[in-house]
Every structure is written in C-alpha cells, then in structure tokens.
C-alpha cells in the first residue's frame, strides 16, 4: 500500500501573469484547452495512489474552490481523508496582509492538519506546474537512498533563473548545495516537488516557525544541507512552468507538438479535471481547422489555425483565429480576425474586429471583455 500524503501549495499568483491571475491563483489558471494547472499535480498524486491530499490556499481562491468542489472528479470525495481544502486556519499572518511568505509559513498555517496525516511520507508540490510525474517512483528512490528529503529536479532549465531554485548534485544524486535565484552551469533546476517523512516535516515546520524562517528552499534545503541527507530525483520528461504571459503562450503552443501531448497526457496516467457535461464539438459545412487543439462543446463554423480552443468557444462563419489561445466561452463573431491573442473566459469579439498581437508579445484579454 502506498504510504504517501499529498500537500499542494495553491496560494500564490505569479504577478507577471497579469490579467490571467487577476481573479485566481496560478494553480487555477486554465491550460491545455480544458484543464486548470492544479489538475496536473492533483492527478499525478491520484495516479500514484495517494489517498489524502491537502490543498493550501490563502487568498483569491474562490475560483479554485469552485473548480475542485468536493473532489469527486478526482475520485477524492471522502468522509475520512480524500481532498481537503486548507484556507489559512490558525494563521494570524504575523500581523501582515497578503499571502504566505514561503512554504514553511504556509505549512505552519495548517499545522493541526499536518499533525493528523495518516501516512508516513508527505509529498510537497506546487499546484502550478503542468507535468505527468510518477510520484511513486520518486518515493521508491527516496526509500532506496534512505534520504531525509528527496527533491525532484531537472537538467533542462525551464523557469526564469531569478524565480527558480537550483541544486548541485553529486553523481550519486546527493544534493550538496542549493542556490535560490541563480543558475550555475551543471546545476539542476528544482521542480519544487519534495518527499519527506511526516515526522521530519513536523519537526522542520516547528523549528522554522519558532525561528521565523519561512522558505523551504533557503531555510531547509540550503541551511540544513549538512545535517540532512538530501537527494535529487532527476526528471527529464516534460514539465511546464508559468511565470509570465509569454511563458503561458509558449507552453500552450508547445502542446500542438504530438510528442509533448503524449508525455503530458499518457493514457495510463490520465489527467483528470472537472467534468462539465459538454456535448461534442460541431464543425460547420464550411469550417476549416488546422493544427489546433479543440475542446468539447465548441461550434466551429469559421477558420482556426495553430490555436488552442477551450470548451464552448464559438467561431462564427467567416471569422479567422490564428495562433490564439481562446478560453472557455470565447465568441468570435463573423468576420472578426484574431492573431496571437490569449482571450480569458467569456470574451466576445464583435463582427469584423481585428485583434493582432505578436508571437513574443501576445495580446492578453481579460475575462469577460467585450470588444
């Protein structure tokens, strides 16, 4: 029996994602035509047999609450265990407003929940990465190494160095140093996924909270590197992070590559999401649609190319959509032209309007806008 518990950090909103995180955290950002980012790590946990998962939230989490609901869609609705949403409970904010300063502060905000964890090991992960990660293999490596903490990391760099953490690894995988915000040749980028035992976790949270330390990376991985046995688990598969709008756009377009879809959506490790009971997508007699990813419930009577269409997008006859990401409910009226645009939910573009961004600077349109 799998003996892991999952903790997802879903409290932060990447400020450079601007309009896209105006009303949500990065974890609830729509991605890949029908998912929210949190679906990926949540599904990874379910697929790895993790029975109980806590999601740490802080502000702006209404969208997440609505998406996750009772956890049924991930088969996590239980009386005992299953999915638990963890708004800041005992957390008094040390007199500060705003989100948690770091993972340790977030964990200390839900300390009473952590104490009740029934499993021996805990996976800590961020809710805002698109990846299909076999966590049971990470646990196996953790046990094989008799490690105190195992951190998932990658040789390929993915994020902006200033916002990422890097590990120096010995050939056997042992982590010798942790650098925050600074990439050095040969170091591994952290995917912010950690496995450790429940008891160590409680000790660390306790200790760090008593010393006003809040950053797992700096105050544990870096500061305690001598006293703890830290190992890296190398992941060389696909993983996408989202630190700014251009990131979001690039990663979305990558999905048009079948190999990347294969890596992210492999059938035996399905990514689950909320089910909206949409019917199939209808293509009209004169529609044209190439190299695009299209969700259910759309009505395509115009042209789409190199685009990602979320559910219930309508492209009227004569409208043209190229290199766009159109979220749920976008309506493109006849004759409108859109290129290099990211439209958030329920945007309407009236007949004949022309919206053109640039590949390196896609035009992002806020939720509900009418143009």
């Amino acid at each position, binding site marked *: 029996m799998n003996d892991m518990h999952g903790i997802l950090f879903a409290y932060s909103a990447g400020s450079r994602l601007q309009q896209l995180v105006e009303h949500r955290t990065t974890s609830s950002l729509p991605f890949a035509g029908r998912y929210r980012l949190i679906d990926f790590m949540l599904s990874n946990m379910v697929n790895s047999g993790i029975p109980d998962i806590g999601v740490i939230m802080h502000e702006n989490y209404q969208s997440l609450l609505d998406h996750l609901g009772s956890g049924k*869609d991930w088969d996590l609705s239980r009386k005992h265990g299953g999915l638990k949403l963890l708004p800041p409970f005992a957390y008094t904010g040390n007199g500060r407003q705003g989100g948690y300063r770091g993972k340790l502060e977030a964990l200390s905000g839900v300390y009473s929940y952590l104490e009740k964890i029934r499993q021996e090991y805990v996976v800590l992960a961020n809710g805002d990465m698109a990846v299909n990660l076999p966590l049971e293999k990470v646990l196996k490596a953790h046990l094989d190494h008799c490690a105190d903490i195992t951190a998932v990391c990658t040789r390929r760099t993915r994020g902006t160095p200033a916002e990422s953490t890097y590990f120096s690894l010995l050939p056997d995988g042992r982590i010798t140093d942790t650098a925050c915000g600074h990439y050095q040749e040969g170091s591994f980028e952290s995917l912010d996924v950690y496995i450790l035992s429940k008891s160590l976790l409680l000790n660390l949270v306790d200790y760090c909270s008593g010393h006003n330390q809040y950053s797992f990376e700096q105050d544990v991985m870096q500061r305690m590197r001598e006293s703890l046995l830290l190992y890296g688990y190398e992941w060389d598969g696909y993983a996408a992070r989202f630190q700014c709008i251009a990131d979001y756009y690039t990663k979305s377009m990558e999905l048009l590559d079948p190999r990347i879809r294969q890596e992210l959506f492999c059938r035996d490790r399905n990514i689950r999401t909320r*089910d909206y009971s949409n019917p*199939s997508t209808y293509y009209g007699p004169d529609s044209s649609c190439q190299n695009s990813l299209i969700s259910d419930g759309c009505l395509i009577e115009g042209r789409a190319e190199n685009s990602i269409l979320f559910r219930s997008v309508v492209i009227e006859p004569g409208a043209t959509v190229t290199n766009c990401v159109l979220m749920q409910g976008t309506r493109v009226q006849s004759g409108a032209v859109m290129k290099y645009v990211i439209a958030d939910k329920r945007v309407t573009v009236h007949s004949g309007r022309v919206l053109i961004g640039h590949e390196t600077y896609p035009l992002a349109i806020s939720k509900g806008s009418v143009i």
Partner: protein
Amino acid sequence: MKKECIAMLLAGGQGSRLYVLTKHMAKPAIPFGGKYRIIDFPLSNCVNSGIDTVGVLTQYRPLELNSYIGNGQSWDLDRISGGVHILPPYVREGSAGTWYKGTANAIYQNMDFIEQYNPEYVLILSGDHVYKMDYSEMLDAHKKQEAACTISVLEVPREEASRFGIMNVNEEDLIYEFEEKPKAPKSNLASMGIYIFTWSKLREYLIADEANARSKNDFGADVIPAMLGAGERMLAFRFSGYWKDVGTIESLWDANMDMLSRNTLNLLDQSWPIYARSPTRPPHYTGNEAIIHHSIITQGCEIEGTVENSVLFHSVTVETGAEVRYSILMPGVTVEAGAVVEYAIVAEGSRIGAGARVGAPPGDTAPEDWGVAVVGGGAVKPGRVIPPKVMVDRKGKEVVR
C-alpha cells in the same frame, strides 16, 4: 426513504436487431451521439425532472451496464437516499432464477425494491430511445387528472400510424381504446412506451397479471389492455419534440446523423444537460492536413485526414489521407492512412487497416443491396473491402442480417 415518484428503467433488451453491435453489450449501453450511451438520455431526463431514484432492470450483459453506471456519480445519482440501482433478475431461495418474462414481469419481480420507497407513482421507462423530456410535467398531468395510468404519446404521420401502438382518446385526452399496430388507425397518437402509474393501482394489476397463466406479462400487450378493460382512468400525455427509436442499424445511423443537425436535440442547453460517463481525455487535435466538415468530434481524437458528415466519439484517430464520410466511429476507433469509411458504423476499438474500404455511398449500388456497413470491433485488415450492408464481427467474420 419515502419518495413521491421513482423510475424503473427497462434496460434488459438484447437489441438483437443491432446484431454485432450488441454482441458484447446491452442495447442501452450502445454509444450514441459522440459522447453518450443511449441510457444517458432517460437517466439524465430523470435527474433533470427531479426524480432521484431509478431502478435499472438489466439481464443481458449486466456487468457492462453495471460498470458503466457505477455509483451513479456521472448523473448526480450517487445519493444516500435513492440514487440509481442495477436490478438483475433475482434468484430466490431454493428456486432457479430466470430472465424476465416480459416488461410487466420485470417490474413484478422487483416489487420489493419499489416498496422500499413507498412511492405514490412509478415511472416506467425504456432504454431504447433518444429524447429529452420533462417527466415532472407528465407527472403533474397524471396527478391533475387523477389517472391510474398516463401514457406518453407522440403524433406520428397518419400513414405510419399502423406501425405503432395507437391510443384513441376523448376530448380530455383520456384513452378509451388502445390498438396495437392497427390496420386502420383511428388516431395518430403513438405510445412512446413511457408510463406513469399510480403505484397502488399498478401493484394490483401486476399481481393479477402474474396470476394469469395466459399473459405474456407485457405492459403493452397485457397490463394496459387489462386496465382499459376494467375502466381505469388512463391519460394520454402529448409529447412534442425529438424522439427516436434506435433499435435497428438504420435507425441508429439515422439518429446519429440527426445529431449533426442543430434543430433536433439541443445538447448545448444548460438547463437540461445530458450527462454521460466518459474518461477525461485532452481536447481533440486537428492536424495540418485535416479537413472537417459538418461533423461532431470529441475529446481525445486525433484527426489528420478527412472527416465529413460524421459522428466521432472520444479517442478516435483518423490518419493522414484517411477519409471518413457519413459514418459513426465509436470510442477508440483508428482509421489508418488511406482507408476510406463511408456510410458505416464502426464499433468501439476497431482498427480499420491502411487502404481498407468500409461501406460505400448509396448511388454506387443497387438500392436493394445497399445499406449501412458495420464493423463490430477488432481489426479490419489493410486493403480489405467491406461492401455496403455487410456486417463483420470482432474476428472479421461476416454476419448475416
């Protein structure tokens, strides 16, 4: 646990006129309309009508339906009180169990189940039809007229009326006569096989019907005539809207093609969602050379070829250069490069080999030899030709209609 009205869904039909398609599953489990199975329609209608307790009477291949329905979550029927329950024939102590003798016998055998909920009314449904209907309006009419039984009816063209069970009614729509397939129909109100009974009445007639050795224990043939004969108050409830029986290859094909038309069933109406159980797959992908016209395509598909006037279920692959026209491709079908599928129904998981040809347009064949081609599963070898009207089973063997 008392419920005002519970539904009993007759899902035991073997669907033998669907041949290879029902060889491995019961008719109500047949995929339909891109995302659904036939049983999704009555189940969703129940939930949307506020009926939260449904007994599903199965007998043929119950395991498939059982695992499709699961705990009912997909239809919001996972309830503490009520919910959806699969009811296979019950083997009583010391006696051998048998399949249900007829529709009325199926309900008779499950009287204990019904009595648990102590209902005022019982709605009898079948798993053979595709339609959207608010049963609560029918129930309101039943209550208002204080009827013993209310039968949902559809106006059919006069010339087709002799193919149906016809209700002859008075000005209040109370039924005074029921004629099964009359040669000279007096009305054009055809029974849709949807009944609401006042339970206390039905109970009485079911017991009498079971005691009658000459009865076929069928609602249409025995129970309804007996109630009419006894002078019970029987109401015809007029339904107008899309309603289609999908009991034959042709009607199944037809009904799927209807889903391409926007003025048949509006599946986008959020106030009356049709729920279904389907795996979460990523959005479908249309390739650089994909041509898609007048078709419905579902999650998980990968389309690199041509798809026209067709219904594609989830996870279908149409490779580059393959052509699919006027066809229904059920979940997980692969059409390999250069294959052509026209006027065909291809069952779940089939693989149409490169360059194979399944079906053909009506014009190319003598009308009497033409029909929808059917692939019942398995692999169609590359280059093989399956002519119109021909059916092959999972092993690729031709099956005679």
